C-alpha cells in the first residue's frame, strides 16, 4: 500500500512543511495573545521576509546563484536568514506603530482591528507588487542538491534521500522555536509578554510597559516569520502574493494548537503539516482534498476541545 510504503517519507515531508507553518503561526498566536487580534497582515510580514532574504542573496551572489567567493555556504545562508528576519521585524514593528497603536489607544473593538489588518494586508502586498514586479522573483540557487541522509524505503530511482535544504529548514525552525520557548519562559521580556497576555490592565498596574511589550511581541513574531519566509523562498517561490495561502494555513495551525499559546502554535503547525502530507498518502488524488481534510480535522478538534489542543492563553499554558 502506498501509505505504508512511503510512511517515513510522508512523515518527513509533513514535518518540513509543518515546521514552516509553525514559524509563521507563532507570530499569529503571540499577537493574538497580547492584542486578541487576528493579524491578517502577518502573511505580508512573512512575504516581506522572503523578499528581504532574496534581496540579500541577490546582492551577494548576483543572479547567477553561485555562492560568492570568500563566503562559506553557511555564512551565505545565515546572512540571508538574518536579512529576512530584520526586514520582517521592521515591517511588523511599523505595522504596529502605524496601524494598531492608534486603535489600541481608542480601545477599538476587535472587528475594527481585524479590518485594519485586512486593509494593511491588501495595501502591503499590492505595494510589494508595484515595487518589485508581479512575477516570481529569482531565488539564487544554492541549496538544491546534496543528499544528507537516506530515508527508509526506496523510490523508483534508488533510495529516498534527504537534501541539505530540507535539513536546513527543519533544523532552523526547531532552533528558532526552542530559543523562543526559552525567551518566553525564562526572560523578563517573556514574563512581560505572558503578563500582558493574561491581563493587560493588571500588568500595567504592576509596572509592565504594555506598549513596549506589544511592540516587542510584534518584532519577535516578525523575526520568526522572516526566517520562515526565507526558508520558504528557497523551497517554494517568491512573489508578492506568496503570503496569502501560508498565512491562512498558519492561522489554522495557530487555532488548532490553541490560539494565544506559543507551544500550541508549534504543535499545531507540525500537526497541520503532517495531516496535509498524510492525507495525500491515504486518499487517492489526495492533493485535491488536502484543504478539505485539514479543515475537517480542525473542526473535529475544535468540537472536542473548543479552545484548541493545548488551550488558549500564553500565560496559562506556558
Amino acid at each position, binding site marked *: 500500500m502506498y501509505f505504508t510504503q*512511503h510512511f517515513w*517519507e*510522508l512523515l518527513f*515531508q509533513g514535518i*518540513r*512543511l509543518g515546521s514552516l507553518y509553525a514559524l509563521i503561526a507563532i507570530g499569529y498566536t503571540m499577537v493574538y495573545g497580547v492584542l486578541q487580534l487576528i493579524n491578517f497582515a502577518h502573511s505580508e510580514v512573512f512575504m516581506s521576509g522572503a523578499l528581504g532574504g532574496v534581496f540579500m542573496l541577490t546582492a551577494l551572489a548576483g543572479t547567477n*546563484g553561485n555562492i560568492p567567493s570568500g563566503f562559506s555556504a553557511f555564512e551565505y545562508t545565515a546572512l540571508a536568514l538574518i536579512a529576512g528576519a530584520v526586514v520582517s521585524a521592521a515591517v511588523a514593528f511599523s505595522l504596529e506603530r502605524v496601524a494598531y497603536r492608534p486603535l489600541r489607544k481608542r480601545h477599538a473593538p476587535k472587528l475594527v482591528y481585524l479590518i485594519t489588518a485586512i486593509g494593511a494586508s491588501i495595501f502591503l502586498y*499590492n505595494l510589494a*507588487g508595484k515595487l518589485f*514586479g*508581479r*512575477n*516570481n*522573483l*529569482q*531565488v539564487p*540557487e544554492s541549496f*538544491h*542538491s546534496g543528499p544528507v541522509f537516506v530515508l527508509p524505503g526506496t*523510490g*523508483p*530511482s*534508488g533510495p*529516498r534521500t534527504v*537534501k541539505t535544504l530540507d535539513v536546513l529548514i527543519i533544523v532552523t525552525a526547531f532552533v528558532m522555536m526552542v530559543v523562543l520557548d526559552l525567551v518566553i519562559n525564562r526572560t523578563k521580556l517573556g514574563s512581560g509578554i505572558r503578563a500582558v497576555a493574561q491581563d493587560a490592565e493588571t500588568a500595567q498596574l504592576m509596572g509592565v510597559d504594555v506598549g513596549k511589550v506589544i511592540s516587542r511581541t510584534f518584532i519577535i513574531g516578525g523575526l520568526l516569520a522572516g526566517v520562515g519566509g526565507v526558508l520558504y523562498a528557497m*523551497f*517554494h*517561490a517568491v*512573489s508578492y*502574493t506568496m503570503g*496569502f*495561502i*501560508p498565512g491562512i*494555513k498558519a492561522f489554522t495551525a495557530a487555532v488548532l494548537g490553541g490560539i494565544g499559546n506559543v507551544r500550541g502554535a508549534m504543535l499545531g503547525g507540525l500537526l497541520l503539516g503532517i495531516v*496535509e*502530507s498524510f492525507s*495525500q*498518502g491515504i486518499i487517492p*488524488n*489526495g*492533493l*485535491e482534498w*488536502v484543504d478539505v481534510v485539514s479543515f475537517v480535522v480542525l473542526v473535529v478538534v475544535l468540537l472536542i476541545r473548543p479552545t484548541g489542543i493545548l488551550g488558549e492563553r500564553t500565560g496559562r499554558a506556558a
Partner: protein
Amino acid sequence: MRTINRVRAGAVIAAGVFALSACAGSSTKSGGGSSSSSTGSGSSTSAANNGKPTLEIGVQGPLSGANQALGLNIDWGVKLAVQQENAKGDLPFNLAVKEADDQGLQNNGADEANLLIQDPKVMGVVGPAFSGPTAAAGALYSTANLVAISPSATAPKLTASGFKTFYRVVANDNIQGKAAADYMAKSLKAGNVFVVDDKSQYGQGLSTAIIAQLKVDGVTVETDSAQAGTQDYSQLASKVASSGAKAMYYAGYYADGGVFAKALKSAGYTGTMMSGDGSKDPNFITTAGKDAAEGWQFTCACLDAGTNPKYAAFVSAYKQLANAEPGTYSIEGYDAANTIISVLKGLNTASPTRAAVAGAVGTVDYQGLSKEVKFTSTGDISTTAVYVYQIKSGVITLLGDVNTLVGGS
C-alpha cells in the same frame, strides 16, 4: 482647544494636498526621471500633438489581482504594438491604449466590456484574456459590433457560443491538447503518461483534451491535479516519479509549474517533463531555477524562433518598455493588436466604424510575429500548427513542428 487642533489639522492637510498636487502636476509636465520608460494608462503611448484625432485599442484582462502577471504580459505587448505604430505615424489618426481590468474574474467580465464599448474611440479590443470573462462578455461585444481578439482565451466552446465578433490568435485547448498527446505517444513513444493539471479553467481544459487523445492513442494515463497555490509539491512529485511514467505533462501556468519543476527535480524524476503554452515563459526558469528547468519541453501553437531578427527586436523593445522580459501571451497580445492595426490601416480612414473593423478582421490575413493571423468562420485561428520547445542550458529553444516530429519518428 480641541476645535483649534481640528481646524489646524484640517488646514495643514489641505495645504499638504494642495502642495502635493502642485508637485504632481509639475512633475508630469517636466516628465523627469525615468518617465520615458513609464507608460501610464495609455497617456504616453499616444504620440505627440500632431493634430490627428485619437482612436483607441482596448485591452481587457487581469491587470490586478491573482492572475495579474498574465494580464500584464498582454497589456505590455499591446502597448508596444501601439507605441511602434505611433512612432511610424502612417495612420490618419493616433492610437492609444485603453485598459479594462477584469482581474480575470467572470464577475467583472461584463462590466469591463461595457467600459470599452461605451467609449466610442475604441475600435477593437485585445481580450478578454481569460475564458471566464469572455463567456460573460462575448455577447456584449457582439451586440456592440466591437471586435474582440483574445490572445489567450483557449476554452474550445467559446467560438461555438455564437459571439459574432469574437476571435482568438491562440489555438484552442483541443488543438494543442491533441498535438501534445500525439507528440508524447508517437514521438516520445511514452506508453505511460502522467497528466497533472492546476484546477484552473485553462489547465483543466487542456488536460481534458490531452487525456482524451492519449486514450485514443492507446496510452496508459495517470492523472492528478494540484491547484494553483499548492504549498508542497514534493508528494505529487514522488508520486509521478514512482509511477514510472515515461512522460509527464503539467497543464497549468508557470508560476506554479516552476515550483513543481523544483519538486520533480528533487524527487529524481527521469522521464520527459512537458507543459503547455501557459508555462512557456522565461519566468518558468526564473521560478524553478536553471537546474530544475533544464530539459523541460513545451507545446505551444506559437512560433517565436529566436533566430528570427524580428523576434529579437521585439524582445529588446519590449524590455525597454516594460522593464521585464516578454512572457506568456506577450507575443499573442502584440500580434492581436497588430492585427487590429493592420485592419485599421487597410480601412485607411480617420473615422472607421466598428462594424467595418469587425467585418475586415473576419477576412484578415496578417503575418504576425508568432504566426499567420487568419481566422476560420467561427473565429478560431486557422493555422493549427503546434510547435515543441525545450529548455536547453537555460534558454527556451525550438525543437520543431509537432507534425514533422511525429511523422519523422
